[in-house]
């Protein structure tokens, strides 16, 4: 291997690498956001306190069982297999012929959602009981306290774990090549199909993956700091404090 060769391959194929990287990023960003929303919604529903009326209790039980099954299935099976099952299954069973890009988004989102549901549940349980009580005490309903008080704190707390999911998604979208999504791995495979320089071509791909994950981590770290707000506050009015 020579760096000369790596450089040549990159210069010859950079539009393909770029398109692949773009696809990887787009799928990861959209799916991480959608996955986080799925996780938050499941988290909110799962923490609804037990209702006094029997009907509501039964409905809640059924919904929670469905959520549990969802989480278990998607955490307990490889995404590469899920991709096959959903992409070919939707065509075979429901006659829905998904666009590969849409299929990719769906697969990664619901996969992320399963993990995020557990992360959010942990995040909600870690919030001090007093926050719920204070919200209830001023007359907030479960959903009001969730959206105004609890979730803003949960989101801050789960941000590091979400960043983790994001990084995992950037890497794991590579498995989507099995259903022909033209992400970075797929593009690299195409490049090697022409030049047969497997090591050099994939070495470039690894560099691009690393660049993406590293950048994303930095951006999210910065975002965390912004969410924390300033460390100082200004007193209002110019009198001395009493």
């Amino acid at each position: 291997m020579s760096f000369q060769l790596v450089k040549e391959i990159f210069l010859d194929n950079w539009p393909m690498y770029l398109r692949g990287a773009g696809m990887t990023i787009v799928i990861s960003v959209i799916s991480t956001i959608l996955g986080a929303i799925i996780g938050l919604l499941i988290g909110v529903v799962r923490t609804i306190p037990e209702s006094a009326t029997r009907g509501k209790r039964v409905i809640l039980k059924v919904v929670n069982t469905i959520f549990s099954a969802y989480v278990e299935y998607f955490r307990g099976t490889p995404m590469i297999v899920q991709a096959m099952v959903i992409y070919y299954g939707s065509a075979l069973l429901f006659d829905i012929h998904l666009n590969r890009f849409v299929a990719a988004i769906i697969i990664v989102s619901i996969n992320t959602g399963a993990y995020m549901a557990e992360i959010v549940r942990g995040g909600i349980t870690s919030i001090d009981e007093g926050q719920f009580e204070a919200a209830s005490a001023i007359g907030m309903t479960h959903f009001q306290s969730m959206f105004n008080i609890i979730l803003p704190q949960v989101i801050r707390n789960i941000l590091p774990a979400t960043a983790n999911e994001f990084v995992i998604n950037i890497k794991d979208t590579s498995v989507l090549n099995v259903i022909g999504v033209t992400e970075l791995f797929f593009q690299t495979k195409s490049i090697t199909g022409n030049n047969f320089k497997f090591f050099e071509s994939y070495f470039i791909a690894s560099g691009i993956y690393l660049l993406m994950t590293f950048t994303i981590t930095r951006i999210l770290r910065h975002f965390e700091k912004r969410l924390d707000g300033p460390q100082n506050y200004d007193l209002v009015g110019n009198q001395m404090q009493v």
Partner: protein
Amino acid sequence: MERVLDIQSLRKSFGNNEVLKNINFSVDKGEVVCIIGSSGSGKSTLLRCINLLEKPDGGKIIYNGRNILESNINVYEYRTRLGMVFQQFNLFNNLNVLNNCTVGQIKVLGRSREEAEEIAMKYLKVVGMDKYINAKPRQLSGGQKQRVAIARALAMEPDVMLFDEPTSALDPEMVGEVLKVMKELAEMGLTMLVVTHEMGFAKEVSDRVVFMDKGVIAEEGEPEQIFNNPIQERTREFLRSTLQAV
């Protein structure tokens, strides 16, 4: 006197531990009632049952003539009529001081932001925290947090203020600033129900003192009578042990 709260044969158990056994008492408008008693006597549970943070097992809570334990009562609306101040402050950690006092008004009472801020400022001034509106709870001392918590409850303009050991988690030097605010509120004619270990406050500020022991109201009466002339032996016992410690 207009009766605001009337508690009738209230019962509450945690498992087989009966915490409240047949509690009967009432609060009139403008009255300041202090509930005293040793730890584990059920004082806090009683307060938490009144605003339904704990679900009572039996009995009635009559608020303005209606039993709020009946199933057709809107619990959320009822809770807005009671202001609760917690031992651990429980300020909303994600919101600054001003928004702590406006969020309930805006989201629950449906007031406009301008109106909510105006009302919040009014009560933040009462507790002397109006200069700190931009601070986050974690940047405040315990006493400051508790004063904001009082303003948050007041901003909902409740009929009754419930205080659950509001000074028990405070450093000794901060107890004074919170008690001072509470005393001012009492003088403003607010209806207050205070669970406290501050015997000085109970003696000086309250119209009536309720002594609880082992899940029942052992004795109730005017502060002079309870503190100087308790009828029950266990009241005497309790007062001797607490006052001695000071």
